[in-house]
């Protein structure tokens, strides 16, 4: 494999951008150490690495948000400084962040030309609207987008807003476009459209740096890639000459024999039974059971009602009718408190918004659902609380400088482990994982799966809602498929195939 052979071996094409020996430290942290990277004109270049590998720091150096400590940046062969975002822009470097920089109330044209509006009269700052709309229309045409430049951005979908960002970059005459996780909020069709736009940019000679965790997409759209790990340069690879496994090995620094380390389950008693559950407009006559020692997967397309079902079962949303039986006891789950008291725990889809209090410590997040157990004579037993949290940090291998660290400073995988620790501390026997590995990098994913294994091994009933087909097939003992608020299929691990799940998710009846 070309560990570093790909890097600067081909000289047929003078690189547009070349980074040499870039290092950057922050107090107590070495974010980047001696990083190399080379991007050619008309190339789509993947920047690969786990969370915390240094991708965002590198990007911020390129955008002028951070200053490098050492190293050199060459632009079209000349050594340059990038000290401010303005300088990056003037060179022709544009960045599209995950969070867009658009003003929703303004039109597409206004957003594209914001602070650079064409004037009919410069002294009066009298904007030439006609010219502005004409230029915007030309950009939109070039991107093959059927959008009216006068339309406010507020009504546009995520994919269209992203296109407005790309149009803005083109209007700045960008030669290098950096895209941070551009596909994470897009549907399949929108991703296709984005890729065709990227190919068109490529044909124009624009270079694109593509940052993504989705390796299949990286292989589809990118020519070469640079891999970082723990702030270090690992390799530059030609994607045509390598494999997904090899990239993962470079990213995590070891071989992952198995992405889905599923252990054989020993199904125990019925933990949860849901009968005739209805919620107007969302859920229709839902019946299912979950068993101790089993992972029950819940499949379905976005909007099929999976999260709604889990929230209803957990008491977070009211239900119109239905019976919920937990460990043989009919339970009125009218609030999350009631669900938790009955032994349930929910790891929500959006862990930052719903699973964690980011500005509180690891300690206080872990104990949040078990404070009653930690209280004697009205006061908390603070030593026990700390000991409990330290125990979970150890057991779940939560990477944190200490239990007092604020959760907002942890990586996605470690944040998810803190949410899990919260429920283990409250001794939940039924755990609902809603998209358990969303936004979590490869190495941490496998850790989450291993934790699920040990949970079911200890007799916990695990319910896993997932949009990732391989994850569902790889980890579930049984899979329920939802379509428009109803369960359309129940498949055993052996029956389940991608085709069957998809068919049921689209509403087809499945017989076996």
């Amino acid at each position, binding site marked *: 494999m070309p560990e570093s052979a790909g890097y600067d071996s081909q000289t047929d094409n003078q690189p547009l951008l070349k980074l040499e020996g870039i290092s950057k430290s*922050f*107090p*107590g*942290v*070495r*974010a980047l150490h001696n990083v190399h990277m080379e991007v050619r004109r008309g190339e789509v270049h993947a920047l690969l690495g*786990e*969370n*915390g*590998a*240094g991708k*965002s*720091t590198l990007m911020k150096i390129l955008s002028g948000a951070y200053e490098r400590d050492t190293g050199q940046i060459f632009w079209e062969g000349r050594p340059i400084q990038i000290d401010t975002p303005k300088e990056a822009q003037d060179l022709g470097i544009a960045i599209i962040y995950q969070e867009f920089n658009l003003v929703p109330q303004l039109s597409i044209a206004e957003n594209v030309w914001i602070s650079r509006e064409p004037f009919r009269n410069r002294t009066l700052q009298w904007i030439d609207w006609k010219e502005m709309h004409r230029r915007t229309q030309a950009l939109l045409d070039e991107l093959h987008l059927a959008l009216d430049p006068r339309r406010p951005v507020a009504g546009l979908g995520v994919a269209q807003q992203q296109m407005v960002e790309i149009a803005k970059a083109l209007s700045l005459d960008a030669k290098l476009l950096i895209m941070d996780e551009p596909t994470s909020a897009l549907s399949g069709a929108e991703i296709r459209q984005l890729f065709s736009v990227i190919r068109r940019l490529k044909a124009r000679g624009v270079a694109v740096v593509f940052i993504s965790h989705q390796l299949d997409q990286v292989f589809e759209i990118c020519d070469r890639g640079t891999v970082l*790990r*723990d*702030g270090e340069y690992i390799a530059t690879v030609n994607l045509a000459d390598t494999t997904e496994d090899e990239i993962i090995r470079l990213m*995590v620094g070891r071989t992952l024999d198995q992405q889905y380390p599923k252990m054989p389950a020993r199904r125990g008693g019925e933990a949860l039974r849901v009968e005739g559950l209805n919620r107007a407009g969302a859920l229709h006559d839902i019946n299912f059971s979950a068993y101790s020692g089993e992972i029950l997967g819940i499949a379905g397309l976005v909007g099929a009602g999976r999260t709604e079902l889990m929230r209803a079962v*957990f008491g*977070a949303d009211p239900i119109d009718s239905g019976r919920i039986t937990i460990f043989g006891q009919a339970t009125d789950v009218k609030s*999350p*408190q009631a*669900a*938790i*008291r009955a032994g349930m725990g*929910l790891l*929500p889809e959006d862990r930052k*918004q*719903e*699973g*964690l*209090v*980011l*500005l*509180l410590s690891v300690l*206080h997040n872990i*104990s*949040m*659902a078990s*404070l*009653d157990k*930690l*209280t004697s004579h*009205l*006061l*908390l037993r*603070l030593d026990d609380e700390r000991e409990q949290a330290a125990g979970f940090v150890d057991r779940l*291998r939560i*990477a*944190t400088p200490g239990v007092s660290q604020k959760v*907002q*400073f*942890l*990586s996605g*995988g*470690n944040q998810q482990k803190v949410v899990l620790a*919260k429920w283990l501390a*409250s001794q939940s026997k039924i755990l609902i994982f809603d998209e358990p590995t969303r936004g979590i990098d490869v*190495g*941490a994913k496998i*850790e989450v799966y291993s934790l699920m294994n040990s949970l079911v091994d200890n007799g916990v009933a695990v319910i896993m809602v997932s949009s990732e087909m391989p994850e569902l097939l790889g980890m579930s003992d049984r899979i329920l498929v939802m379509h428009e608020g109803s369960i359309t299929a129940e498949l055993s691990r052996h029956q389940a195939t991608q085709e069957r799940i998809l068919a049921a998710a689209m509403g087809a009846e499945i017989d076996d």
Partner: protein
Amino acid sequence: MTEMPASDSARQPRSLFGMTLGGFIGRFGALFGLITLVVVLSATSPVFLTADNLSNIGRQGGVNALLSVGMLLAIITAGIDLSVGSILALSMSMLALLAIQWGVNPYLAMLACVAVGAGVGLTNGLLLTRLHLPHPFIATLGTMNVARGLALIITGASPISGFDRAGAPQVLWLGSGSIGPIPVVVLVVLVVYVIFHLLLSNTALGRHIYAIGGNAAAARLSGIDVDRTLVIVYSLCGLMAGLGALVLAGRTNSGYPTAGVGYELDAIAAVIIGGASFAGGVGTVWGTLIGVLLMAVLRNGLVLLQVPTEWQIVAIGLVIIGAVYVDVLRRRAQG
């Protein structure tokens, strides 16, 4: 594991003793301000450090101290209570009405005074959680006016004075009494602050208050009864206003319906100076105490230095602006 929170830690650029500059100012700025003020006043005014003046500061700052610690709870939950000044007036008016005009047993009247405070606070909490008014700003703005109006109605819009003459000198003890050289109100404040510190740091309720302010949705999904917690918080806020009414009545030997105008703003200022954030989830009892002392010492110092009243008002205003700026710096430091 291979993952390191490197890129996250990278968000903290300038550091001072392991804290960001903004975090440092947020945590210790008020304390430095207080110390500076004390040093300057000790040097410029011969009266400042006398026992008489210090106990004066204690008596005058006591009411704000009680209102502020209640306000702290509301602000930690990302809320606010605009009604505490009016609650104070209503409680105080009720106390004077019962003890002076109706001759009710002074202890019963004092109990009623505190109960009225807690009752209006409870109402605030219920308005917020049962009627789902959009923000405590609205609910408490309403009760602020209602309570003020009721205070004017029950007193006929004029002060009721003379607890001592009416045979209820017990009422004066909290506001005017001393134990040795120390005013009773100072001791009361210290006891209340210790209790609130324990409440916030060492009880489940305290944790719930921080969690709700940090992220109410996550708190709810962690099994925290958000509504119940908020009702308790606003009840305690009202209770502290009732207690403040007892102290002010004792100090002024009267109950008057125009008492406490603008006190809610002093309390908010003290809490924010003391390191709490309007965004919620942050704030400590001891920080609030520093904020209270800073404001009390500043007021006292301006009088000692014979700054004209109108300029005193300007100075207090500037301190409030400075305090909110500190909040801004701190939030910027947190990214």
